[in-house]
């Protein structure tokens, strides 16, 4: 029996579709082994890395992962902390200990720190098998978000919005003069002057729509140049490659 990959790299496959024949290929994330075949386990884009075949998800909900930086919204104030919603099937708890190094006396009004409806940038410190999530505010850049606006995108598109070493989001920041925070959970906060914010939102939506297509950075650069009427700095574009 011949061993071969039966699909092309970057091809879109559906669940149950055969990807490769033969035991020398290994099933990566999003695939499984069925006898001597590697089979797709979800709708996704094939990515072949040597002998490992994996699928890049194109859709789906955010599953909390340790050390992810996320944006959460305070939905409840507990006895010793806050409950956050972060655009996932589960909610996270921020305890007093992880929230601040200030001394907070027993019985203090916790809404003075974070009130209902506030958005905060935090980091996941623990996820249990039952998806109980603990987050912390201790780390660089973790803070309460004041003003600005929140945009929701598919969590699977977040890596494309950030770009290699943050190049894509840096380009949008520079072109629109906006302050942008991207959470791994698909919530994006941006703050700047109104016209810049509108362009940034448009750019982010464009990335979300075209995330699975190639040549994204240059297309977004042209888009930003057209919208802002300014040259998008070449240094940033260079950094993206």
């Amino acid at each position, binding site marked *: 029996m011949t061993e071969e990959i039966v699909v092309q790299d970057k091809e*879109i496959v*559906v*669940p*149950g*579709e*055969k990807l490769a024949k033969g035991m020398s290929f290994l099933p990566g994330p999003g695939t*499984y082994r*069925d006898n001597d075949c590697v*089979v797709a*386990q*979800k*709708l*996704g*884009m094939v990515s072949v890395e040597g002998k490992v075949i994996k699928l890049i*998800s*194109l*859709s*789906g*909900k955010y*599953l909390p992962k340790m050390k992810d930086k996320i944006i959460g919204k305070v939905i409840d104030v507990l006895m010793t902390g806050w409950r956050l919603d972060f655009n996932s*099937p*589960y*909610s996270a708890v921020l305890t007093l200990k992880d929230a601040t190094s200030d001394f907070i006396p027993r019985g203090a009004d916790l809404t003075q720190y974070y009130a209902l409806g506030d958005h905060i940038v935090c980091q996941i410190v623990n996820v249990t*098998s*039952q*998806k109980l999530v603990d987050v912390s505010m201790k780390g660089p850049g973790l803070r309460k978000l004041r003003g600005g606006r929140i945009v929701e995108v598919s969590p*699977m598109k977040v890596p494309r919005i950030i770009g290699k070493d943050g190049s894509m989001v840096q380009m949008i920041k520079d072109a629109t003069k906006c302050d942008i925070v991207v959470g791994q959970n698909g919530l994006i906060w941006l703050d700047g002057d109104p016209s810049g914010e509108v362009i940034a939102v448009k750019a982010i939506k464009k990335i979300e729509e075209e995330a*699975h*297509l190639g040549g994204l950075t240059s297309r977004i650069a042209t888009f930003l140049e057209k919208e802002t009427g300014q040259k998008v700095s070449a240094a940033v574009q260079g950094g993206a490659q």
Partner: protein
Amino acid sequence: MTYHKRFDGRGFDEIRPMSAKVGIIPRADGSAMFKIGNTMALCAVYGPRDLHPKFMQNPETGILRINYNMMPFSGHGERVRPGGGRRSKEISMVMQNSLLPVLNLKDYPNAVVDVFVELPQTDAGTRCAGITAAAMALADAGLEMKDMVCAIAAGRVEDKIVVDLNYLEDSHEDGCDIPVAVMPNSGNITLLQMDGEISREMLKEAIKKARDACKKIYDVQKAALKARFAQRE
């Protein structure tokens, strides 16, 4: 009595013209439309999401909850009574059972995947169209599935075996209707129901023809899912 020619002039194992589209409801996490002849199913998937009431939560795995609904104007002119009933509850349950074998919701304890199947126009074969649409919508929602599911009805009208019955054949006095759902790659059957009487030999033949028809449905599903993320330009 023999059944010479089908009421709508199709061949005996010819299925009605199909079309499918994925991603029709932007607000949903996954969605699909599947049309076969005059039967049309719309499906929206929400979730995995927080499950309430809490007593339904399962700490070992996420659960699948399907809601099948025929719209009031969907039948042959007479108004379908809106809201859930004995029939829609049963069909929701069998659809759930036919889709669960391919789904893996182990990563989502205590959560639920809600699937809404709405039928704006019906001409028999609604549960099959619903299952076919739901499988596409679940894949579109990015859930872990080991295979797709395709469904079609086969059966008997008088002395002939027919595939993809329409309403006239389905309600024929001397006939039998057998909805079959198949996992196209492994060939496993996930739904098999029967309404009417049929001989053992004809049953085997009917299931074989339904399996063949499912391959055609699978091609339509595959094309629709791939078209969702196809290169534009």
